[in-house]
Structures are given as C-alpha cells and as structure tokens.
C-alpha cells in the first residue's frame, strides 16, 4: 500500500494502480489481436499448401499431398539459381551502395552551415520516397524508352545508335541500383543525419583543438560515433536479404521477360508462378523457403549483432 499525499496534506492509504488484470485492457487489444490472427497467422497455417498438389476446386484440405515434390521441382529448375543469385546479389549491392550514399549525403548535409539550405536540399532529396514504383517506372521509361527515351535522344544527337534498354539484361543491375538509391538514399540519409546531430559537440571542439582536418574529423569523430547505428541498420537489412522489394523489381523492368536473367527475384518469381502458371503448390513452396531462410537469417544476424554490442539487436 502506498501512501499518497492528498490536498490538504493528509496521508491516505490507497490501492496500488495495478492494471495487471483489468478486463478493459484485454478488451482493448482483443480486436487487433484477432486481426493479426486472421491476416498473419492463418496464412502461416496455409503454408501446408507447399506440400500439396493444390487444386482450386478441392480447396486446401481436399487437395492431395505431394510431399517434397514442389521443392524438388524448384531446386532442379533453372529459376532456382537465377532468382537466388539475383535476390542476394542485388540486395547485397543495395545495402552497401545504399549505406555509402545515405551516409555520404548525411555527412555532406551535416557540414553545410546554412540551415535553410539543408532544409531545402533535404526536402528535395526525399521527394522520390513519396511516389510509388509505378510512377518511378514511368520516369525510367521516359529515360530509357527505345524510341523516345531521353537517353536515346541524346545518343542520337551525339551520333550514336539508339539502344533498346529493355532487351539488354546486363544493363539492369546498374539501372536498378540507381533507381533504388534515387528513391531511398534521401530518406535514409535523414536517419544518419539525425544521428550526426546527436554527436556531442565537445568531441568536435576537442578535435579542433588538436588541429584535425575535415577528413580526420570524419574518420575519428563521426564514424566511430555512428558505427553502432550503422551496425544495427545493416544487420537488420541483412536479415531481410532474401526479401526483395517487389515494387522495384516488378515495375521498373516492366515485367519484361527478356530481362529476367538479371531482374527476376524470389518475390517476382513467386508472383508469376502463382498468377501466370497458377501453380499454387510450387509458389507456396518457394514462399515457405523464403520465410524460413529469412527467419533463420534474422535470428543469426541478431545473435551476431548482440555479440558485438549487447545493446543492439532486435530483442
């Protein structure tokens, strides 16, 4: 029993504010929890489709078991290597290039004295973040269109032949990286910028006293200060390395089959297998693989990050 001073100075005994078993709390969270069950947990159960020859008319429970056939089929297909490689490589590049660009931007903005300029530039840099990949695809098309594209117009003016970008797979890793950085570097840099703003000023003053140059300050003050943040964020991203941004990989290459060798990733493959070929069992199997691998990866990367710095990690 706590003592509580009421107005007038009289000490009064009263019950603890202990909401532990208040039915109202359970009532509050009931509906959200049900929604989570329906839309997140039920589909998990639906993963058994991966082990079945799913037929629409027989439903989940009526369709025959197929054992590991779907998985075998996938592993033996050409697609397996292609989409695994594309997903991992592209995401890997995104993580590295994304980090360099976002961090670089943040440091540049940090060094800018004029707050007004910083605000203006930041606003401009994050604008791409607010549009969808559909609109971004229009822009990419405006640049790369075989007939009218901005790039081809320039090439023609310079006397070079026009290039049909949408039939050259080898150009696309580069194109996709540029698209990715264009869309997210601005927003990501804001996170790093906030971290930079949080660095203790006395560290900079001390560096000044020691006569440090700009580069030395970056190396010895800034980088060490934000390494923890970079580590967490990077680890989080590695945990998700098997999940591709479906919008990016589906919209920007405009689902052109010729480009699949470099633009097809796990998520686009699952989508096509489900929609185009209607093979529910197989696409479900790949989806299951993606979820399981992703889960394992997150667990591992979280464990590793905790080993490095116990403060980090998701839980």
């Amino acid at each position, binding site marked *: 029993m706590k003592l509580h001073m009421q107005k007038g100075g009289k000490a009064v005994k009263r019950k603890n504010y202990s909401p532990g078993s208040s039915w109202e709390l359970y009532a509050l969270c009931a509906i959200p929890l049900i929604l989570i069950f329906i839309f997140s947990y039920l589909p998990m159960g639906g993963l058994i489709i991966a082990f079945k020859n799913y037929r629409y008319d027989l439903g989940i429970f009526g369709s025959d078991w197929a054992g590991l056939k779907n998985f075998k089929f996938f592993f033996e297909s050409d697609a397996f290597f292609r989409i695994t490689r594309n997903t991992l490589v592209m995401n890997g590049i995104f993580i590295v290039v994304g980090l360099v660009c976002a961090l670089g931007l943040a440091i540049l903005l940090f060094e800018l004295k004029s707050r007004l300029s910083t605000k203006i530039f930041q606003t401009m840099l994050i604008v791409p973040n607010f549009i969808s990949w559909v609109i971004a*695809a229009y822009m990419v098309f405006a640049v790369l269109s075989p007939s009218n594209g901005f790039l081809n117009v320039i090439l023609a003016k310079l006397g070079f032949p026009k290039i049909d970008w949408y039939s050259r797979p080898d150009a696309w890793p580069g194109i996709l990286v540029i698209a990715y950085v264009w869309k997210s570097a601005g927003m990501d840099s804001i996170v790093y910028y906030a971290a930079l703003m949080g660095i203790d000023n006395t560290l900079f003053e001390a560096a000044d006293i020691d006569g440090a140059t700009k580069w030395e300050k970056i190396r010895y003050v800034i980088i060490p200060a934000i390494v923890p943040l970079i580590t*967490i964020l990077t680890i989080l991203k590695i945990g998700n390395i098997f999940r591709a941004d479906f919008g990016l990989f589906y919209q920007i290459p405009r689902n052109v089959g010729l480009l699949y060798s470099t633009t097809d990733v796990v998520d686009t493959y699952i989508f096509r297998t489900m929609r185009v070929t209607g093979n529910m069992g197989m696409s479900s199997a790949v989806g299951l693989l993606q979820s399981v691998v992703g889960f394992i990866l997150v667990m591992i990367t979280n464990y590793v990050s905790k080993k490095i710095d116990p403060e980090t990690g998701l839980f």
Partner: protein
Amino acid sequence: MSKTNKSSQVILTVFLAFLSILVVLPFVMLLSISLSNEEAIVKAGYSLIPRDFDLSAYKHIFKNPGQILQAYKVTAIFSFLCMGLSVVLMSMLAYPLSKKGFKGKKTISFYVYFTMLFSGGLVPSYILTTQYLHLDDTIWVYVLPALINPWYVFMIRTFFQDIPYEISESAFIDGAREFTIFFKIILPLSKPVLATVALFTFLGRWNDWNTSMLYINDESLISLQYLLQRIMEDINLIKNASANMVAINIGEMDIPSETVRMAMAVVVAGPALVIFPFFQKYFVKGLTVGSVKG
C-alpha cells in the same frame, strides 16, 4: 562544428544543389513531356523542356476524367478509412502492452513481434483472402489486411511507455477506469506518434497497386497507382476510353498517347508530391525513433 571557410561552403552548396536537382529532374521530365505537343514528341523524342508547349494531353484527360476520378475517389476512401481505423486499433493494442503489470504482456508482445520475423507469404494470403474471406472485389481488401502493422504498434507502445506514470496514476486515483485513461488522457498526449503513424499508413495505402493487381477485377474499384500501371501496360486503354465517349468522334482522331500517359502520371503524383513534403518532419521523427528503438 568544424571551422569552415567560405569557399568550401560554396563548393558544398553547389554540389548538394546539383545532386538535389538531379534527384528532382525525373519529375521535371514527366511534367515537361506532359506539356508537350504529341507530334513533336513522336518525331524528336522526350526532352527536359516541353516541345511545342501544348496542353492537349491534360485537355484530353479532363474531357473524359471518369476513370481517373473514380480511382481517386476509391483510393482516397480506403486510404483515409485505413488510416483512421489503423491508428485507433494499433493504439488499442499498444496501450496494454505499455503497462508494466499487464498479465500476458510478454506473450502478447511476442505474438505480435513474431509476425515481423516470419510470414505465410503471398500464396496462403491470396487463397485466404479470395477463397475464404471473399474480400476480392471489395473495398475492404484494401483496408483490413493492412490495419495492424507490428512496427508501428511497437513505435506507439514505446511512446506510451514514455508518458509519465504519474499521469495515469492520478487519474486512476480520481476514479478513472482504463478506458477513460486511454481515450481521454493517453491518446491526446500521443498526438506526435499518432500523427506519424497515420501519415506512414496513409502513404502506404495511397501508393498501393499490389492489392488491385491481385484482388480486383471490378474496374470501378481499382486504385490510383494501379490505374497508372494499367495505362502504362496498355496504351489501348486510353484509346478505348476515348472511343466510349458519346461525344464527337473525329474518326481517325489521334489520341495523344505519349503525352497523355505522362500527364496521367503527373495528375496522379501531383497532389501527393505537393502535400507529403510538408509532413516531412513527422516522417523524420518516425524514422529516427523507429530505427533506434527497433
């Protein structure tokens, strides 16, 4: 802060300005193509400056705006609907989780958290949504699955946890029940985080094209972005829409397809681009809180 000299600041400013302009350039390009003359474009290709300034692309759109208006309407409805419901429901979930003594807090937190680690994926969700819940071709398919986002739930919970305990405590002493405390005290105090979550959710819904592609066949229910996607894929869509016009059909009338495409993109993206940067600071706050506290 480091000692700076004028010239290095100038270089920095110029460089950043260059980058910023580069980033914004694609938007300029869309705009300029949309304001160009169709023939000039077909002959000479896209450019950064309008070729033969021409409003006919926009005239064409606004003469027969049915499709785009409908998509705007649908998208606005489900975006606002989801935003409102989502914020309320996620707060309702976050509140008990923010209470120290709440029995089952650990279990429920894990229950929510686990969905961030593992998911059923596309196929089971698709089958569930279409065959069992029959949400396809309804507006609810845009709203219901997107209502609870674990990331935002924890963001809200963290915020609730930071509200001084004494406030709730003194309300309780004055006889308030949990419902009252939640709705009358905690929520009003949480405007910043709720605004941030609302914005993120709204943006997510507004830009949705996935859902339409998978679950909608009814033309009158397609979302704005999906309309745009369809137009990109099928230029005939524009031509057919015009053919359905009961008004004058000038026989072999040339539909300004190139410029109209880009004009539609501008019309779709325009409002969002104008509005969202104003809420920049909310996004920023949300990002920094979310990434630091995970």
